[in-house]
């Protein structure tokens, strides 16, 4: 099982290398994608590899000349990588979100690397508008046309449906791991689970699924129950993964993560696409309904309450506390946080806010806070 995990890790830690290699081996196209609502299925259906662009580990250098430091680490990192030429091998980058910082990043990339083709098709973010479905459909149709043109392959309804099935299967399998974790039957650390989800974002989907199937067999063959600790839910980080060192730290302080709504976590795998009927229609419906599954604060949606979702999720996982991981400068998260805080206070859910950054990781200070937080929880649980 260690070997399997390290394959996931390898892919997750070196996404660009892996994609370059894949491109060299298959001779096919690689389409980059910004988070978080853009379906990789469309690019996949045209025979390309959809690659969710990841925050890098490198300190930001070249990017400093294009992005102010008061932007979130994710946007600064991708601009930095673009300016260092890391994205030059991509055939295009597709993108349709509307977080204002991402828009700035996209423009910075476009101005600095004019050869990098950016396919921008903005998804509607007011989910309750009567025209929301129609707009979402049109956006995906337009994206389809543009992808066909870049890749030079037609995307048929059959090929798109086939891709949807492949992506759904992958999500289903990862959700099994989440179910196991919630039930206390998964002896994987949070860092390891992150490798699994993140590698799915950057690898060939069928290869990833095959590895997952293997993993699930091995886990079933020798189930290792979770070692004890304070059950904790992790919330936040809407675009980039929490740093591995931080996840390890949380667990080393005596917590065990039982659930999350991280993008590099449950958020990525929560919703499946309808496999019957017109696939573009299905993708549009997926886009609109997935927000109800795991609400995203950048969407304006009266029917979605991130705070209520979290209270429910925490209770379902039987977590005794929540660590909110807020990426510094993430505006959507900052806007919503006070409501989450109030909801937790109202429902007596212990919570700790940890602001994370791309650059500095003051582990000692984090340790103090997390230890104190766990001390509080243990005392409350004993009372």
């Amino acid at each position: 099982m260690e070997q399997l995990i390290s394959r996931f890790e390898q892919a997750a830690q070196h996404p660009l290398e892996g994609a370059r290699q894949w491109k060299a081996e298959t001779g096919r196209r690689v389409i980059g994608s910004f988070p978080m609502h853009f379906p990789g299925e469309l690019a996949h259906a045209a025979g390309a590899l959809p690659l969710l662009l990841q925050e890098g580990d490198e300190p930001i250098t070249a990017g400093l000349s294009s992005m102010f430091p008061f932007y979130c680490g994710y946007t600064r990192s991708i601009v930095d990588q673009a300016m260092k030429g890391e994205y030059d091998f991509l055939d295009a980058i597709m993108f349709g979100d509307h977080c204002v910082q991402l828009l700035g990043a996209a423009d910075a990339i476009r101005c600095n690397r004019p050869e990098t083709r950016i396919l921008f098709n903005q998804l509607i973010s007011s989910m309750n508008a009567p025209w929301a479905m129609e707009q979402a459909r049109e956006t995906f149709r337009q994206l389809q046309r543009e992808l066909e043109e870049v890749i030079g392959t037609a995307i048929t309804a059959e090929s798109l449906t086939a891709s949807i099935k492949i992506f759904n299967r992958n999500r289903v399998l990862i959700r099994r791991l989440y179910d196991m974790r919630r039930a206390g039957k998964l002896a994987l650390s949070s860092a390891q689970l992150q490798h699994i989800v993140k590698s799915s974002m950057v690898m060939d989907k069928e290869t990833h699924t095959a590895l997952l199937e293997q993993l699930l067999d091995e886990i079933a063959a020798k189930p290792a129950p979770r070692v004890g600790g304070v059950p904790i839910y992790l919330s936040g980080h809407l675009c980039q993964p929490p740093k591995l060192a931080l996840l390890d730290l949380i667990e080393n302080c005596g917590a065990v993560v039982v659930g999350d709504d991280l993008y590099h976590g449950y958020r990525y795998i929560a919703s499946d696409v309808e496999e019957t009927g017109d696939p573009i229609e299905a993708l549009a419906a997926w886009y609109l309904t997935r927000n109800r599954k795991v609400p995203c604060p950048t969407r304006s949606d009266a029917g979605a309450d991130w705070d209520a979702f979290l209270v429910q999720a925490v209770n379902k996982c039987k977590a005794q506390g929540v660590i909110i991981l807020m990426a510094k400068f993430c505006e959507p998260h900052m806007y919503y946080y006070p409501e989450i805080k109030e909801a937790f206070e109202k429902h007596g859910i212990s919570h700790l806010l940890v602001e994370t950054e791309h650059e500095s990781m003051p582990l000692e200070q984090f340790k103090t806070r997390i230890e104190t937080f766990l001390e509080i929880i243990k005392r409350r649980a004993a009372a």
Partner: protein
Amino acid sequence: MTTYAMGIDFGSTTAKTIILDGDGTVVASCIESMGAVSDEGVKASIAGALSQVGITQQDVGFTVTTGYGRRMLDVSQKSYTEITCHARGAVALVPNARLVIDIGGQDSKVIAVDSNGLVETFAMNDRCAAGTGKFLEVLARAVDIKLPEMGPLAMQATKSLKISSMCATFAETEVISLLAEGNGKADVLGAVHAAIAARTAGLVGRVGKRTPIVMTGGVAKNVAAVHHIETAVGQKLVLPPDPQIAGALGAALFALDEIRMAAKRSRVIDEEDRDVNSAMDTARACGPACKSTGTSTAAGQGTEIVVAPPSTAVI
């Protein structure tokens, strides 16, 4: 023989050691400056405290450490975070306290506590100098006065100036500009203290204001800081006589808990043994008159039963 409880706060600028006797009375208190993060200062602090009582480390029944260096000390038998210890220590110093403001050299924290001195929730700044002792240090240099003089001089401010930057580096530039414009040092320092108070008030807001409020940490000795925080928060602060030792005191109290719990465990064991013995005695006794238990086994509320436990520590 008395068993002592020791609490050590291994901080970033100072190391503090407190020793309590079995009744929980403070019998030793020693603060030493830290140079770099080495253990020279803390060793001196421990040694100083021990010598105040005239004992050695062997006489200490339990040692709890706190502060950034809490895990670096060999003598440590248990460690708690400085948040937990400051809360405990502050409530020991001011029994009805509900909020603790602690501004140290490198960080500032606001802690909401329950009636037992246990932490309910907290907010901290430990990532930058804003609102910490470091902020004052940097600005003392900029105004060219010694740190202990800052408070009294700031209290002489007559003009209400403003330093708007939260960042110590940029605040330094502001200070220099204000001085260059001809403003007096007292007025400028007033603004500096208002700035630190604003930051503190922000943390209080996040935690939720409760009263009474105790202030601990080195900055509590700065009259201007106290004054400006009181203004910003709209509440008088309770200042314990020795605010810097709250963390070490809390740690020592936790150590005392450990000693008492160990004693209680051995008492219980002893009582069980006695019960067994007395049952056996009763069984063997010729008659009721021959039964002799030696001590009362009924432990009423608040009755301390002192028994020599088999362990080495003696109460």
